């Protein structure tokens, strides 16, 4: 089936449309009376239905169709929005998402949706199926929503309404022609819908489809015989159009004739005076699904100026660029050595240009974190209903952009944290009231940029972390010893819940305690080069704060020398570098510490940590110290000398050496040597 080539586009667009539906529904729940939201949802659902029908995913289009019916009922105020209705609708969206996912994985998107379909039907039938509308506003689409009315598709004449009339007149003024096109498909055509789709594709390239009989809706549902009629505004001539349409296979016949808008004017007027007017000499089929059609059309016409690029290509581009960054480093070094003015100038220029290029490539890979956040409101909503809680979830900074690779990885940890907050953090309304808090819990999901990092915060106003309980549990589970526990700060105690082998849930619940603790969250985030912190006040709430790097591939580092070896320390974790007199180093608890701007900072000698072979035993009078931080804690890394700051390409050590202590990766320096990247987080306890 040639629709395979459209599959990627189909999946992407379906996801987008589902997202629109999803967002719209949640919005609608907050403002049940805002019918413009319904319109928006309807449009997205409609597009989805059309596309899935075209692609032959019947179950998907069926379910969407049922959903659409309910939405239509809501739109016409036949069904009122309440949380039961929302439940069913959101549930359907979930099914739709599953189906789309199935299709994306190569399945056929078929699923047993009997329950939800019958629920949708029940909602729809909750009111009498509308035949007549009393309200003026609803009047216009009355004829169309009753899709079951007999079709007279063989009719070869068309009428236009006021709006379309205006468009047609405008087109004439602009010098475009209006054609009435009748397309007949050959009788043995198997994929009528696909052919219709292709014909529309062709037509939309040459102009604008103003109207079709049967409606686009019906065409998509294959509710027509062998032919259909279209009014098209175009600047192409008849012969060209004819040739173009005939190129679509299985089209038997195309007749094109100029459409006389003026002649229709009188009909239109008559129509307005009497709604059921069929007194025209032409026999008519009043198919007026304008609101739908126009909606669909506008969506297609309003293509924004973006293109879809396969992420693999971007990765390839990034890899090539990384190679270039390495060679750029080498060029800089050579020009420095040769000290040739022209060469230096050129190399500087190349450096600048490649710097710009790097920015562009990096931003190209950036996607708003919205993609990840989007699924949370529904998840929270569902969880709250399951758990009998009441939570108002707010999202801030969804537009914050992050590298695609980070986005792909961050979803699961966030799900985990949010489930955790809903399950263990926020109390039930009764419990909250008894504590003098408002019954509705608050949860804030917030993302923002700061420096070279993106922060994601999950804040709840729940019960907070019970430190005694945590400590007790940690001791019981052997995460810390009783002696150690006495010297822990509050923060350290909070962070115990992230330690492996720890789980505070009293009993294992469906929601969060599934044997996988928050340690998985921590390790995922750390594997992304990020970090996680917890702030919590018992009884008041908890904030999880995740710090993530903007990008994973190119980072700024400080190169330092330890004996004969070169190491790279990520600039993001460095506070400053200092040269300190040996005499200023103090001892506390048998550890070397320095007084750094009023803070006592422990020293970590990289020579010892990395077991660097000693070249000489000379004790120097000065220590070169790189002060790094992890959260609030600091440490001074003692090195032999500083080389300077450089942009490097982060490379992994490979599968064989994936877990080397305090080394997060490697990079290739300008001279071709490999330098290891220090994971300063691992050095701070």
């Amino acid at each position, binding site marked *: 089936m040639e629709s395979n080539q459209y599959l990627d586009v189909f999946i992407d667009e379906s996801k987008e449309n589902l997202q629109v539906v999803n967002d719209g529904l949640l919005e609608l729940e907050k403002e049940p009376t805002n019918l413009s939201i319904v319109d928006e949802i309807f449009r997205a659902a409609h597009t989805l239905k059309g596309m899935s029908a075209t692609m032959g995913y019947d179950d998907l289009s069926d379910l969407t169709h049922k959903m659409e019916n309910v939405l239509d009922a809501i739109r016409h105020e036949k069904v009122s929005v309440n949380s039961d209705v929302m439940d069913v609708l959101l549930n359907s969206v979930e099914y739709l998402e599953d189906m789309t996912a199935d299709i994306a994985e190569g399945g056929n998107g078929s699923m047993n949706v009997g329950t939800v379909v019958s629920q949708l039907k029940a909602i729809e039938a909750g009111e009498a199926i509308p035949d007549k509308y009393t309200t003026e506003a609803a009047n216009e689409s009355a004829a169309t929503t009753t899709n079951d009315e007999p079709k007279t598709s063989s009719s070869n004449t068309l009428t236009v309404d006021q709006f379309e009339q205006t468009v047609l007149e405008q087109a004439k003024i602009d010098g475009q022609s209006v054609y009435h096109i009748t397309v007949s498909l050959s009788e043995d055509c198997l994929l009528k819908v696909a052919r219709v789709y292709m014909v529309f594709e062709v037509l939309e390239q040459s102009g604008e489809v103003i109207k079709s009989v049967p409606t686009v809706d019906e065409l998509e549902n294959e509710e027509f015989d062998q032919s259909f009629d279209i009014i098209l505004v175009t600047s192409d001539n008849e012969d060209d159009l004819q040739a173009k349409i005939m190129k679509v296979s299985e089209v038997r016949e195309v007749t094109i004739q100029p459409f006389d808008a003026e002649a229709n004017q009188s009909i239109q007027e008559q129509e307005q005076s009497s709604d059921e007017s069929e007194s025209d000499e032409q026999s008519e089929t009043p198919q007026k699904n304008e609101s739908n059609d126009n909606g669909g059309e506008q969506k297609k016409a309003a293509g924004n100026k973006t293109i879809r690029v396969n992420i693999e290509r971007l990765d390839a581009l990034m890899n090539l660029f990384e190679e270039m960054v390495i060679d750029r480093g080498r060029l800089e070094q050579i020009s420095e050595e040769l000290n040739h003015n022209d060469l230096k100038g050129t190399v500087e220029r190349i450096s600048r240009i490649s710097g710009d290029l790097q920015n562009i490539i990096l931003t190209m890979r950036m996607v708003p974190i919205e993609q990840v956040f989007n699924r949370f409101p529904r998840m929270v909503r569902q969880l709250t209903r399951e758990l009998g809680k009441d939570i108002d979830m707010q999202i801030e900074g969804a537009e914050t952009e992050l590298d695609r690779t980070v986005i792909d990885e961050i979803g699961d940890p966030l799900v985990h944290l949010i489930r955790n907050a809903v399950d263990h953090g926020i109390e039930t309304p009764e419990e909250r009231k008894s504590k003098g808090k408002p019954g509705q819990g608050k949860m804030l999901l917030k993302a923002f940029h700061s420096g070279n990092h993106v922060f994601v915060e999950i804040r709840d106003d729940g019960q907070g972390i019970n430190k005694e309980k945590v400590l007790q549990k940690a001791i019981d589970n052997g995460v810390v010893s009783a002696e150690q526990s006495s010297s822990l700060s509050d923060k350290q105690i909070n962070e115990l819940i992230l330690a492996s082998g720890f789980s505070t849930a009293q009993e294992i619940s469906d929601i969060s305690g599934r044997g996988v603790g928050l340690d998985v969250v921590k390790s995922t985030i750390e594997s992304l080069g990020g970090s996680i912190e917890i702030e919590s006040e018992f009884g008041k709430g908890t904030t999880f704060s995740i710090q993530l790097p903007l990008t994973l591939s190119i980072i700024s580092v400080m190169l330092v020398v330890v004996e004969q070896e070169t190491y790279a320390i990520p600039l993001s974790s460095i506070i400053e570098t200092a040269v300190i007199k040996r005499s200023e180093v103090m001892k506390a608890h048998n550890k070397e510490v320095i007084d750094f701007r009023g803070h006592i900072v422990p020293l970590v000698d990289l020579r010892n940590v990395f077991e660097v072979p000693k070249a000489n035993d000379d004790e120097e009078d000065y220590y070169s110290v790189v002060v790094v931080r992890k959260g609030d804690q600091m440490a001074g890394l003692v090195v032999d000398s500083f080389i300077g700051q450089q942009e490097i390409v982060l490379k992994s*050590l*490979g599968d064989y050496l994936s877990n080397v*202590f305090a080394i997060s990766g*490697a990079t*290739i320096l300008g001279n071709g040597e*490999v330098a290891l990247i220090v994971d300063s987080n691992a050095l701070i306890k």
Partner: protein
Amino acid sequence: MSEAIQDDKVIVFKLKDEEYGIPIENVGSIERIFNITRVPRAPKFVKGVMNLRGVITPIIDLRERFGLEQIEQTESTRIIIINVDGKSIGVVVDAANDVVDVPHDIVEPSPEVVGSINADYIRGVAKVDQRLLILLNLDKVLSEEEFEQLSTID
């Protein structure tokens, strides 16, 4: 290892006084030794990592691996880049300078007495033109335990 590979060409390298063979299909390239960066706290036989045309490649010291004494690098010291399971690893050998056809039928199972070397590493022994070649089982040179050890160092 399939039968077809077994009677194919092998790259011959020297380690101490013995000659070893690895199937040519598994060999990516043979490199001169240069600029190996030591990886701290890695197992002893991991000599470090090297930049192999933009790819960070771990380097294994086969002398250390086989429990032989260390020697200074010489002009003939080479790194053979081998590909196992789609991953590249470099092994340091004393010399690598020959490609030999090993007919399948002359490969004999490894003798029981092989000193310190775990017999698992050895696929067999072949006598080709008065030379005794020890054919290595690459999968086993970095055996499962070794792989595990390598990826769980801390």
